[in-house]
């Protein structure tokens, strides 16, 4: 409880000091209000919808929130908050803006080359292989992996769990339809990543789009999963989690690293994004590097 004798302004009688502070406060006000608005919005979204963005890295989430404010033709984050809480269609659009990450087939070709050269030989020793691609976004990298596994003759032993927090993006990934004009660049990636055939062998071109063949999709299980709020759902031989952790603050990164660690079998393998690292994570000592340049690690204890 606040004691009324203490609730008096301690600055009464020191007007000069007070006005200086007020000037300072005015200068900081707009920034502060913006941060308060963001906090309130994320708290509200969490309480109402269960999606927890409160520990997302602030710089990029702020960009995306403002992007959404403009798309909704609103003027403030508070106005967006109101619409989000009362209008679930707006929430879906917001979720889409927050979860779009633009990737490519065989993004970082070296990563896939290492998969072929160093991960595949280890996988051959298992009769059945479970792979989890966490945060698969629109699916380009899932199909890259599926193609590679097929060329290495492992695909029939594999169950590939591809998850994302956003069902709309997941549905797109499941469809496996991509703009045909991008396939040219992807073809180049595919070859540099050690592709053995032609990328055209894996899709049908139709109306300016490329549609991946059904036999590439048959062992992929698409499922909604939120790394922030959902737990481990199996033990995997391989986990890919690329360019997802960069969106989290340090505390959330630590939590998700633990989740990934607990979801790997002993000697299971973890593949991260090119600019990410296992270093400084609480699980660092539990992994050995398979290829530290291409961010492949193995759980050793």
């Amino acid at each position, binding site marked *: 409880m606040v004691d009324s004798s203490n609730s008096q302004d301690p600055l009464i009688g020191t007007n000069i000091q007070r006005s200086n502070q007020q000037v300072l406060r005015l200068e900081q006000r707009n920034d502060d209000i913006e941060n308060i608005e963001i906090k309130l919005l994320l708290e509200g979204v969490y309480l109402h919808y269960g999606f927890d963005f409160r520990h997302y890295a602030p710089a990029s989430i702020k960009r995306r929130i403002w992007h959404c404010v403009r798309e909704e033709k609103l003027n403030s984050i508070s106005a967006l908050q109101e619409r989000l809480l009362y209008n679930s269609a707006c929430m879906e659009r917001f979720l889409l803006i927050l979860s779009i990450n633009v990737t490519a087939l065989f993004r970082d070709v070296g990563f896939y080359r290492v998969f072929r050269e160093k991960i595949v030989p280890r996988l051959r020793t298992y009769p059945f292989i479970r792979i989890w691609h966490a945060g698969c976004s629109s699916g380009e990298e899932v199909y890259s992996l599926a193609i590679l596994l097929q060329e290495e003759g492992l695909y029939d032993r594999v169950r590939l769990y591809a998850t994302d927090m956003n069902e709309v993006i997941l549905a797109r990934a499941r469809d496996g339809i991509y703009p045909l004009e991008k396939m040219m660049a992807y073809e180049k990636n595919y070859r540099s990543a050690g592709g053995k055939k032609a990328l055209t062998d894996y899709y049908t071109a139709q109306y300016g789009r490329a549609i991946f063949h059904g036999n590439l999709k048959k062992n992929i299980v698409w499922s909604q999963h939120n790394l922030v709020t959902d737990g481990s759902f199996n033990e995997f031989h391989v986990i890919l989690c690329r360019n997802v*952790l960069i969106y989290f603050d340090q505390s959330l990164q630590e939590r998700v690293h633990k989740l990934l660690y607990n979801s790997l079998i002993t000697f299971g393998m973890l593949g991260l994004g090119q600019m990410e690292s296992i270093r400084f994570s609480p699980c660092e000592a539990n992994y050995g590097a398979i290829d530290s340049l291409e961010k492949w690690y193995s759980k050793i204890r």
Partner: protein
Amino acid sequence: MKFIGIGTSLGGTQALKTLLPLLPPGLPAAIALVFHRAPETNDTLPNFLEQHSRMPVEEARDKTPIRAGRLYFAPADYHLLVEGDHFALSTEAEVSYARPSIDVLFESAAEVYGKEMLGIILTGAGRDGAEGCVAIKRAGGVTVAQTPVTAVCRSMPEAALANDAIDIALDVEHIVPFLVRWQYSKGSAG
């Protein structure tokens, strides 16, 4: 001045060859560079920068701490953002047809550094950086563009100038002397 952002694309190697060697080691500001380039495996930029910079060069990774006296650069195919005392990366869609985007770096850095930020737009195609310079100005920072007639590709500095977001246009060889002078006049003013 605590943070200097540099943005360039087409013709950038030429401009940086002039600009980088002039930067004094021990400059009490962090420098971050966005250079548009193809997301290829053999990124030649790190070697090029090492060759021409007297400041230590570092590719900005996820949560890399920002330290004065170092030259950071955005990795190919990632946006680079400033977030408190460290960098952040993002793979969201291209901005102004670019990833990394100068706008994204400048806007996020302006928010953190305000008056303590200087933005430099060098030669380049397109209009990336023009919005970022507006953000720097709004936050009280300073902006410099390469004189368009001296640029291999003039459209990027021109777009920033057309946005009325550039304090001064200079030939490349005059940019570093300008910022050093500005730095020390600011320093003595308190």
